[in-house]
């Protein structure tokens, strides 16, 4: 234990751990997605490679790696190569501050929440650069869509997070989780005495998370029936593979944040079965439940229209989240104000 507690060793272990976690998740969430889609569509899904298709991600990886790296003529070579790196880096960094268990986190910094949301925006820039550098009309349209979509959805998402911040009073993710201990009725999702609209804010957060990660029904960036593969149209081989993996890594980060902020993170829903062993298990259970919901939504709904998507944000989600922000402030400060008045 003493060896493990040396700081550089710890950091190295976390680096390896997070990379492995993201890699394994990206690979096997693709399989889960395809299996889930198969189940919803009444077909078996991938079932040939390995036992029940378990080696499918390996086969896909080998296929993508063995492909020639093509940089189409006329592209901006630097940005074209930079975009896949920029899309993959933010989720990896975000995972350093997410508490998987009571003592299982790489860095327990006080502005973890801020870090995650500021890095989350880089993702947009990467997609935009990738689309722009490709010099493909479909990719450029997709890039423009990504930017306006993410600008529209970051606002309600951050408003919701501010609401939550007023309740928690801290940006330290581990502290936020610790506050939610003692049974599922203490989770932020169910704290209706602080803010009667807390479940609504969770729904807003979830919708914004879908839009931020460009998932169906908000997958404007790769609306394949309109824009082929959107911003990644010109990417092939592992360049495409990295974009693809980043999509799932972003889903992992988004669902982890939803778990931490609303569903009590590593806290047990009941007081029993908690502790350093069960904590991470609870966290993963909640996170994967959310991820499966994301997959379920994708294969059930048609895609929204682009302007409908923006209207949903500007006309519905932003007013509601502003209202919850005001309401939370009122509920928290009204007793104090009344106390001063009388």
């Amino acid at each position, binding site marked *: 234990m003493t060896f493990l507690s040396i700081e550089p060793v710890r950091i190295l272990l976390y680096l390896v751990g997070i990379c492995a976690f993201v890699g394994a998740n990206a690979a096997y969430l693709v399989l889960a997605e395809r299996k889930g*889609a198969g189940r*919803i*569509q*009444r*077909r078996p899904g991938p079932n040939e490679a390995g036992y029940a298709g378990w080696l499918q991600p390996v086969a896909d990886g080998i296929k993508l790696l063995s492909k020639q790296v093509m940089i189409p003529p006329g592209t901006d070579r630097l940005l074209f190569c930079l975009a896949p790196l920029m899309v993959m880096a933010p989720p990896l960094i975000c995972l350093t501050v997410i508490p998987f268990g009571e003592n299982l986190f790489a860095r327990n910094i006080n502005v973890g929440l801020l870090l995650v949301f500021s890095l989350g925006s880089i993702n947009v820039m990467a997609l935009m650069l990738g689309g722009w550098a490709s010099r493909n*009309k*479909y990719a450029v*349209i997709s890039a*423009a*869509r990504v930017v306006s979509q993410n600008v529209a959805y970051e606002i309600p998402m951050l408003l919701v997070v501010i609401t939550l911040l007023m309740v928690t009073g801290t940006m330290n993710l581990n502290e936020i989780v610790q506050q939610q201990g003692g049974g599922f009725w203490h989770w932020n999702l169910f704290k209706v005495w602080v803010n009667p609209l807390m479940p609504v804010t969770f729904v807003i957060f979830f919708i914004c998370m879908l839009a931020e990660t460009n998932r*169906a*029904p908000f*997958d404007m960036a790769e*609306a*394949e*029936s*309109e824009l*082929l593969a959107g911003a990644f149209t010109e990417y092939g081989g592992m360049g495409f593979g990295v974009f693809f993996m980043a999509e799932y890594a972003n889903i992992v980060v988004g669902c982890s944040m939803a778990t931490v902020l609303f569903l009590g993170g590593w806290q047990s829903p009941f007081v029993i079965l908690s502790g350093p062993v069960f904590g991470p298990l609870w966290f993963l259970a909640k996170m994967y439940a959310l991820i499966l919901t994301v997959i379920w939504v994708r*294969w*059930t*709904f*048609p*895609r*929204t*229209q*682009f*302007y*409908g998507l923006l209207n949903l944000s500007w006309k519905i989600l932003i007013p509601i989240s502003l209202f919850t922000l005001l309401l939370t402030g009122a509920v928290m400060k009204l007793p104090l104000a009344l106390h001063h008045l009388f």
Partner: protein
Amino acid sequence: MIAQPEAFPTGESSRAPQETFVLNLGPQHPAAHGVLRVLMTMDGEWITRAEPVIGYIHRMHEKMGENRTWAQFLPNTSRIDYLSAMHYTHAFVGAVERAAKIEVPPRAEYARVITSELNRISSHLVWWGALLLDLGGFTPILYAFEDREKILDLLEGLCGARLTYCYYRFGGLCNDVDDDFLNGTRKFVQEMRPRLGMYRDLVTDNIILRKRLTGIGPISAEMCRKYGATGPVIRGAGVAYDVRTIEPYSVYPQFDFKIPVYPECDSMARYLVRMDEMEQSLRIIEQALDRLPAGAFMGKVPRVLKLPPGDYCYAVEAARGRFMVRIVSDGKDRPYRVKLRTPSFSNLSLYEEASRGMILPDALAMMGSLDLVIPDIDR
């Protein structure tokens, strides 16, 4: 139609026309449903002019008709619109029967109605799945194909083919309808009704679908008249035009069925017309199964078919609208001219006017609601 992108598009666009660009959609594009190419002059995501470029799958069916005997052209007809092969064969067979004055036994006519309506349902199922794919919903097409599979199995049992049937012959059918087919069809009708209910609950009433289709892609009755659009497109514009009732053919007048008409003129109206049509087709099939007469399935046909000189027409209501065959005979054993009036061609020709000023996703959704089959356009 060789496309020449104009520097200043004709579409009304108040926003800086010099900022437009040309988006070449297709011929290999997921929304092109085959090899349709559309040259779109775009102003951002807004379409100022969308010009369809056709001819990528032209096979000279009409010219082929002039070089073959009447019977040799028969298999060609099911390859024009591969999704409603029965209707197309019906039109050609009907035209030749009308010209040669061949009597068709009633059992054959009833069997033609049953198979035609089954084909209509299978065609609409493909359209339904493909439209939902255009809208980004992946799952429905697999459900649609599950149902369609049952129809294909039934028709395969009759004529051995699953897509290009060529089941009708001059004067009747190539095989009699057997008990397997009749019982199977009865079972299918019973199974299909709850499935249509499920599609209504899960897909038609979905709020995203309604928002994507309602009020989008207006095609007025006036526009339909201008371009000759027929089928569900004109019935979605509030005109009850259906060849089965306007120019009755075969034994259709003996059945009790409604022509679904929606006056809204939008994509949703065309969607609902087709969904209702499937139910009406089930009704027709049920009635035809109940009244199917016994007897011969083939009439008397001369061994060497020579049509008397003249000009003959026969129109049917195919799944996409009015399909008409016009044959001109000069008394020889092969046609002097075969003219095919295909519904998809007319339905596509209004696309340029209808899509003006729309944004790309809506324009593609509207294209999906037109139910285009590209070989039917090019033929």
